[in-house]
C-alpha cells in the first residue's frame, strides 16, 4: 500500500468501478449530468495520474476517451446504447492498461487490437462533431473579449498561463521527480519559457544530493483550463508551492505572487520580464499597487476569500465553484475514511474464534457458579454472560455486509448478456440493504450468476414471442433479498415463459429420475431441475443449457448450510429462492433434552413450545399430527428418530419450529432453555448423516448436537410420500 504505484492502482480500481456504475446509470437516464460528470472525473483523474507516472499507453488512450466524454458533457454527442457499449469496452480496456502499466508488463497483441479498434471508434465520434469546433472557439473568444471590457484594472498582455512552482526539499525522497511534471505539462500544452530558480542552492558542504533545491517559473500555453493544469500537480500538491495565473491575469495578482514567493521581489520581477510574462512597465505598476494595497487593508472590511478572488477577476467563478465542490467531496471522503477501517479478514476470523471460545468457557463458569449456590457469584456471572452475549453480537456484526454490492455487479452482466442474446431485459433489485455474513456473500456470487443467466437464457422469451404472448416486450429479472426467521432469502425471479411441467417430466423419465406412474405436485416436478445432468433446453447455448449448472448451484448453496427451491410466480415466470443462514459461526440456540442427550435447535426457527397431551403421546408412534389452534401440525418424536433410550416417562413437550412456509413439531423430553451456540463442524464420518447440522460444546463439557431443522421439517411433513421421492427431495433441501 505504501508505494505510489500501488496507491495509483487502488485508486484506479475504485474510479473504474464508479465509472462502470455511472455508465450503467447513464444508459437508463441519458440526461443524468451527475453520471456523466462522474465518468468524466474518473477518466480525467486516471489520465492525469497516469501521465504523471509516465504510463504513456494509459495516458494517450484515456485522453481520447476523455475528449469524447467532454463532447458528451457539452451535449455535442448524444448518448445512445452504442456509445455506452463503446465506453464500457473502453473502461475494460483502461483496466487492462492500468494493470499492465503498473506491473510493468508489455501489452499483448490481442489488447493492441482492441486498443486500435477502440481508438478508431472513439475517433469516429470525435470526427462527427469536428465541425462544431469553430462554434465553441467563437464563444470562447467572445468570453475573452467581454472579460477585457469588464476589467477596469490593468491586464497583463501575455496570452500565456504563468505557473510559479517551488518544490519542497523532500520531494525527491518521496519518489517524485519535478522532471516528470514538466514532461507532462509538455503533453497537454507548450512550455513557452522556463526559468529554473536555484537561489536556494546551498554550498557544497551543505548540499545533499537527495534534496530538491529547484523552483520554476513557467510561461505556458495551453487550451487546458486551470483545473486541468492544477491536476498535473495533484500528486505533489502538499509537497510544493504552486501558483497558476491565467492568461491576461491582472497585474495585481502577479504582485501578490511575487510578494508571496521566498525570493527577492526584484529577482522574480526580472524573471517574469525575461520569460515574457510582464513588461517592465507592468512590473513597476505591480510593485507599486502592492504597497497601496497594504495601506488600504486596514480600512477594508474582510470579505470571504472566494468573493475577494472573484472580485479581483483572479479566478473565474466556475473555478471557485469547482474548488468548493472538490473541497466538499474531499471532506465527505475524509469523514468516510475515518469511519471505515480496512481490517485483515484473518484478524477478524481469529477474533470470532476467540469469542466462540469465550462463549463456551463462559458457559462453563456459569454452570459452576450455579452449582456452587453462591448468589453473589451467580449474579456477577449473569451480568458477565450478558456482556459476552453483546460482544458476540458485535463481533458477528463486523462480518456482516450488505448484499447490494454483489447485486450491483449483476447489472453489467444482465446488460451484456441481454445484448448477446438479442433480448431486452431489465434487472430489478430489491432489498439490497439486507445484510449477511461476508463469507456467504463471497460464495453466493457464482450460484446467483448461474441462476440469472438461466433466467435470461431459458426463462425470458425473445421480444417477438413476448409481444405475441401479450406481454411487455421488455423482460424483467428480479433480484430480491429479505430476512425471514433467522435466514436470508435471495430470490431470482423472471417473468418469462416459466417451467414446463410436461417437458421436465418427460426428461426425468428419460434420465430415470422418476418411476412411471408417480404422482408429483408441480413444485416437486420443478425441483427435479436441480438434479445432476438435467437440462430441458432444446438448444444448448454458450451461456447455459448444458445441464451442469443447476446441480452445481444446489451443491454450492448446500455447502453454505442453505437450501434452494423453485416455484412458478405470479408473472407466469419462475422464482428460484435461495435460503441461507445469516451467519456461519455462532447462533442463539434452544437447548432440549431427549433421552440422556442434549440437542440444540436454532432459536430463530423456534416458534413456540407446547405441552404434549398424555393421551396423544400414547396414541401415536414416531410420527403423528396434533391440532394446534385448528391447524394440522405434523410432529416427530426425536427420541425415536435418534433412537435414544427411554429413561423415564416424563411430560413430553413439543417445540414448534418453522422453516420457510412449513411448520412442524419436535417432541422432546425436557426444555432446557436458551443457549449461545458456537457451531463446530461435524467430523468427516458424520458429515452425511441427515438431520444434523453441527455440534456444540456445552458448559459442562458435553457435546450437544445441533439439529438440521430444514431437513427434519421436511421429514416430518412428507413421511407418507413415496420413499424414492422423499429421498430425492431431501437431497434437494438438505
Amino acid at each position, binding site marked *: 500500500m505504501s508505494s505510489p504505484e500501488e496507491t495509483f492502482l487502488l485508486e484506479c480500481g475504485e474510479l473504474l468501478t464508479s465509472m462502470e456504475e455511472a455508465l450503467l446509470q447513464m444508459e437508463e437516464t441519458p440526461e443524468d449530468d451527475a453520471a456523466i460528470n462522474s465518468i468524466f472525473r474518473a477518466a480525467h483523474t486516471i489520465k492525469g495520474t497516469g501521465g504523471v507516472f509516465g504510463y504513456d499507453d494509459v495516458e494517450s488512450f484515456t485522453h481520447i476517451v476523455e475528449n469524447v466524454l467532454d463532447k458528451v458533457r457539452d451535449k455535442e454527442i448524444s448518448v445512445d446504447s452504442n456509445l455506452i457499449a463503446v465506453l464500457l469496452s473502453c473502461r475494460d480496456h483502461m483496466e487492462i492498461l492500468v494493470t499492465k502499466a503498473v506491473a510493468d508488463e508489455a501489452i499483448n497483441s490481442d489488447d493492441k487490437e482492441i486498443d486500435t479498434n477502440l481508438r478508431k471508434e472513439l475517433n469516429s465520434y470525435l470526427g462527427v462533431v469536428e465541425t462544431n469546433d469553430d462554434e465553441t472557439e467563437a464563444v470562447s473568444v467572445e468570453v475573452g473579449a467581454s472579460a477585457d471590457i469588464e476589467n477596469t484594472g490593468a491586464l497583463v498582455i501575455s496570452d500565456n498561463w504563468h505557473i510559479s512552482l517551488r518544490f519542497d526539499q523532500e520531494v*525527491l*525522497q518521496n519518489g517524485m*521527480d*519535478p*522532471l516528470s511534471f*514538466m*514532461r507532462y505539462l*509538455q503533453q497537454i500544452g507548450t*512550455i513557452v*519559457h*522556463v*526559468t*529554473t530558480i*536555484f537561489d536556494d*542552492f546551498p554550498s*557544497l558542504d551543505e*548540499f545533499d*544530493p*537527495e534534496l*530538491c*533545491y*529547484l523552483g*520554476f517559473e513557467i510561461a505556458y500555453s495551453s487550451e487546458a483550463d486551470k483545473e486541468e493544469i492544477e491536476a498535473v500537480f495533484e500528486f505533489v500538491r502538499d509537497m510544493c508551492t504552486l501558483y497558476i495565473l491565467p492568461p491576461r491575469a491582472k497585474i495585481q495578482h502577479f504582485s501578490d505572487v511575487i510578494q508571496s514567493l521566498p525570493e527577492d521581489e526584484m529577482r522574480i520581477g526580472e524573471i517574469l520580464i525575461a520569460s515574457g510574462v510582464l513588461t517592465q512597465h507592468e512590473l513597476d505598476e505591480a510593485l507599486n499597487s502592492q504597497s497601496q494595497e497594504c495601506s488600504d487593508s486596514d480600512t477594508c472590511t474582510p470579505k470571504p476569500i472566494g468573493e475577494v478572488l472573484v472580485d479581483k477577476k483572479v479566478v473565474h467563478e466556475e473555478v471557485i465553484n469547482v474548488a468548493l465542490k472538490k473541497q466538499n467531496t474531499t471532506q465527505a471522503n475524509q469523514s468516510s475514511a475515518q469511519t471505515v477501517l480496512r481490517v485483515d479478514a484473518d484478524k477478524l476470523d481469529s477474533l470470532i474464534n476467540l469469542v466462540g471460545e469465550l462463549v463456551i468457557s463462559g458457559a462453563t463458569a456459569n454452570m459452576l457458579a450455579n452449582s456452587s449456590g453462591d448468589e453473589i457469584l451467580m449474579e456477577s456471572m449473569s451480568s458477565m454472560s450478558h456482556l459476552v452475549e453483546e460482544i458476540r453480537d458485535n463481533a458477528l456484526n463486523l462480518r456482516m455486509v450488505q448484499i447490494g454490492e454483489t447485486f450491483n455487479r449483476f447489472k453489467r452482466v444482465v446488460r451484456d448478456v441481454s445484448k448477446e442474446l438479442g433480448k431486452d431485459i431489465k434487472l430489478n433489485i430489491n432489498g439490497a440493504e439486507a445484510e449477511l455474513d461476508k463469507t456467504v456473500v463471497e460464495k453466493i456470487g457464482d450460484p446467483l450468476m448461474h441462476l440469472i443467466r438461466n433466467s435470461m437464457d431459458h426463462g425470458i422469451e425473445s421480444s417477438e414471442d413476448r409481444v405475441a404472448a401479450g406481454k411487455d416486450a421488455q423482460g424483467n429479472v428480479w433480484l430480491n433479498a429479505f430476512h425471514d426467521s433467522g435466514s436470508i432469502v435471495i430470490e431470482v425471479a423472471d417473468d418469462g415463459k416459466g417451467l414446463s411441467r410436461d417437458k421436465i417430466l418427460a426428461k426425468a423419465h428419460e434420465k430415470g429420475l422418476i418411476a412411471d406412474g408417480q404422482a408429483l405436485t408441480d413444485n416437486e416436478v420443478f425441483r427435479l431441475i436441480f438434479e445432476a445432468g438435467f437440462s430441458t433446453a432444446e438448444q444448448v447455448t454458450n451461456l447455459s443449457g448444458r445441464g451442469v449448472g443447476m446441480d452445481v448451484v444446489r451443491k454450492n448453496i448446500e455447502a453454505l448450510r442453505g437450501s434452494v427451491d423453485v416455484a412458478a410466480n405470479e408473472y407466469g415466470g419462475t422464482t428460484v429462492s435461495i435460503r441461507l443462514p445469516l451467519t456461519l459461526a455462532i447462533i442463539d440456540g434452544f437447548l432440549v433434552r431427549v433421552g440422556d442427550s442434549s440437542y440444540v435447535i436454532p432459536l430463530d426457527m423456534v416458534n413456540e413450545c407446547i405441552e404434549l397431551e398424555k393421551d396423544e403421546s400414547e396414541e401415536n408412534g414416531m410420527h403423528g399430527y396434533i391440532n394446534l389452534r385448528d391447524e394440522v401440525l405434523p410432529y416427530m418424536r426425536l427420541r425415536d428418530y435418534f433412537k435414544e433410550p427411554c429413561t423415564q416417562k416424563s411430560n413430553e413437550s413439543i417445540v414448534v419450529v418453522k422453516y420457510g412456509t412449513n411448520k412442524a413439531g419436535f417432541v422432546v423430553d425436557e426444555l432446557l432453555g436458551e443457549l449461545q451456540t458456537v457451531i463446530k463442524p461435524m467430523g468427516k464420518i458424520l458429515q452425511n448423516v441427515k438431520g444434523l447440522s453441527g455440534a456444540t460444546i456445552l458448559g459442562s463439557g458435553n457435546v450437544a448436537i445441533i439439529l438440521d431443522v430444514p431437513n427434519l421439517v421436511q421429514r416430518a411433513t412428507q413421511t407418507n410420500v413415496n420413499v424414492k421421492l422423499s429421498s430425492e427431495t431431501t437431497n434437494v433441501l438438505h
Partner: protein
Amino acid sequence: MIKVKNKKTGLCEVDLDGELTIYEAAPLKEELFKKMENSKGVSINLSNVSEMDTSCFQILMAAKRECDKREIEFTMNSHSPAVIEIMELYNMGSFFGDPVVL
C-alpha cells in the same frame, strides 16, 4: 556509473554512464567531488547516460558552481539525449554554457 581517467595533466576527466537517478545520487556526489578535489579542471563526458533525473542534474549544477568558485574550468561534452532533454526542460543550457551537439 563513474570512471575517472588521465589525472596526470591535473585535469579530471569523468565518464558518466547508465541510469543516473536518485538511487545513485549520494554515491555519485561523494565520488565526483572527491575526484575533483585537487584537479585543475573538470571535463565530463555524458555520452553514455541513459537516464538522468533531477537529483543527479543538481549534482552537475553543484559541480559547475564549485568550479566557478574555485575559478577552474568545468566542461561537459557529448550530451546524450537524456541529458539534453532535462537540460532543455529546465532551460539550463546557458547556465552550463557548453556547446551541445544535437
